[in-house]
């Protein structure tokens, strides 16, 4: 099992453009969460997908949207890019169906996609 994989590794865009980031969860996991990690900061929760629906959302504008596919993989889309969107975007997968305080809800992280907006 390769664990959580993300593509691409790096991406350079200009202001106003749109970007799509991709994530494949760890085998057996059904839930995908996305985080933004700015330089020098901890990961900030963007949203979580389960059963192809957005279940929970952090404090991010509607420019950030996502999708989960039947195979549990996920995409993060960001429209109208701003300079401040430059960050490392992390995907984490888990098996949330086990519920809280169970070993299955531990989140496993991917290596991230480094997005630079010029």
């Amino acid at each position, binding site marked *: 099992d390769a664990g959580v994989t993300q593509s691409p590794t790096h991406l350079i865009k200009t202001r106003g453009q749109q970007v799509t980031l991709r994530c494949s969860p760890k085998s057996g996991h059904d839930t995908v969460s996305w985080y933004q990690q700015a330089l020098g900061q901890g990961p*900030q929760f963007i949203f*979580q997908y389960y059963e192809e629906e957005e279940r929970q959302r952090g404090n991010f504008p509607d420019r950030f949207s996502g999708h989960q596919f039947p195979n549990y993989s996920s995409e993060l889309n960001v429209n109208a890019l701003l300079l401040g969107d430059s960050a490392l975007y992390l995907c984490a997968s888990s098996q949330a169906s086990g519920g809280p305080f169970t070993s299955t809800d531990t989140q496993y992280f991917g290596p991230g996609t480094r997005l630079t907006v010029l």
Partner: protein
Amino acid sequence: AQRVTQPEKLLSVFKGAPVELKCNYSYSGSPELFWYVQYSRQRLQLLLRHISRESIKGFTADLNKGETSFHLKKPFAQEEDSAMYYCALSVWGGYQKVTFGTGTKLQVIP
């Protein structure tokens, strides 16, 4: 709303010295607390979680609900412990939401 505070951005200790990475949280319910670690050029990975009550790589952390703290401790630091450490809080409302602290860089001096 939940919050996680890690007051130290950088903690430098000598090899063999004790280590304590501080973490305080605010949440009115019953959260689950985690410590994640990121070694150089590696992905973020779970170090330990409070419900497991395990000692991983010599690290332990005790949840103190009275002080709302979850400090990470190790009696004798090793050079390979040098990394970024993130404290995280997980809450459930039919779904899981994880809040991370800003992280503490641990530097173990040989």
